[in-house]
């Protein structure tokens, strides 16, 4: 299989490898759809996280709300964003944290037409 999508900068394509690496991390996130689970997680995050057999790195990334780290460790944005919903943090704030901007800067970038594809297409071609 041609994995040339690894050439796209700043992009974590959720393929089989990522799915396998992040399965329990993502399923933890998915569990937050249920109110009782959100309560349990709020009440005692440590005990709650113990239910999911994650690596120490994954667990730390969740605890630190390290949004990029979660992606790098197999997280999928639709799943990890459930933690942002839990935290009442917006998609713009998360977008900013992943790209080293404040929420307001990120929001303003979007109003200005978004991040340009120019220069963001390819690591190898640098375009």
């Amino acid at each position, binding site marked *: 299989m041609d994995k*040339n*999508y690894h050439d*796209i*900068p*700043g*992009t*974590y*394509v*959720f*393929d*089989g490898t990522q*799915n396998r690496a992040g*399965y329990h991390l*993502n*399923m933890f*996130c*998915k569990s*937050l*759809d249920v109110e009782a689970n959100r309560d349990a997680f709020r009440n005692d995050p440590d005990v709650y996280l113990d239910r999911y057999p994650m690596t120490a790195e994954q667990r730390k990334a969740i605890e630190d709300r390290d949004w*990029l780290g979660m*992606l790098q460790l197999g997280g*999928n*944005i*639709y*799943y990890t*964003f*459930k933690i942002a*919903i*839990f935290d009442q943090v917006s*998609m*713009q704030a*998360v*977008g900013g944290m*992943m*790209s*080293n901007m404040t929420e307001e800067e*990120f929001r303003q*970038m*979007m*109003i200005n*037409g*978004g*991040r*340009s*594809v120019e220069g*963001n*297409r*390819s690591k190898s071609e640098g375009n």
Partner: protein
Amino acid sequence: MARITAGIGTSHVPAIGAAIDHDKTQEDYWKPLFDGYMPAQEYVEKNTPDVAILVYNDHASAFSLELISTFLLGVADYFPPADEGYGPRQVPGVEGHPELAWHLAESLILDEFDMAIANEMPVDHGLTVPLSITCGQPDAWPFKVIPLCVNVIQYPQPTGKRCFKLGQAIRKAVESFPEDLHVAIYGTGGMSHQLQGERAGLINADFDNAFLDDLTADVDRLVNIGHMEYLRESGSEGIEMIMWLIMRGALGEQAKEIYRHYHVPASNTGAGLIILEAA
């Protein structure tokens, strides 16, 4: 017999739904987007179908990584709005059309499309936001809906070409349904956006506008866009546009553009809307 008369392509950004639900559509940020939606609402009001086949994706709401379906048809009588962490959207529940849905499932499977069939599922913003965009805030949706849920989250998504062929097969299947039904089809998601990574916030208005153009001018080009091109040019979540190709495939060879609208941004997304009619 049943006929597919119109196709609607539209983004399905959750924030658009939230703006409608919380009466923000006339705020500065949202007004230009919603002004552009009004003609679409008028079109749908004048041309209300009996049933809409609504092509969308579930965003880890009804389904999870436990079981990922490539193409899934909802054959239930009723689909409740999903709770996406804020409580279910306060919109009407979605009435299905099990007779036509089962007819589609049977026709498509015998026609070599490997459909999954769901008897019970909630539907998330991917399905309800397009209804809000095109129908406003009625007490009940003005037509029945057959959800057609596509995997766009897990790589590999079905190819654009496969999606287009599915659309063509849907057209044939609808036309073999004996009842006289006026059917519309929605392709939803996109347009360019990327929610994740250091490249979050990517928008490619040129790509989006060319996509809208070629839904009538050069369908062949669109059908041959590969996953790499979507990912690179339209952002990792822009690949949702493959769902518009199911809609386009279901309209037959020729289609006529009736209306279009494009606006940046809706939250993190290039928001597009197009109305096409089968020629």
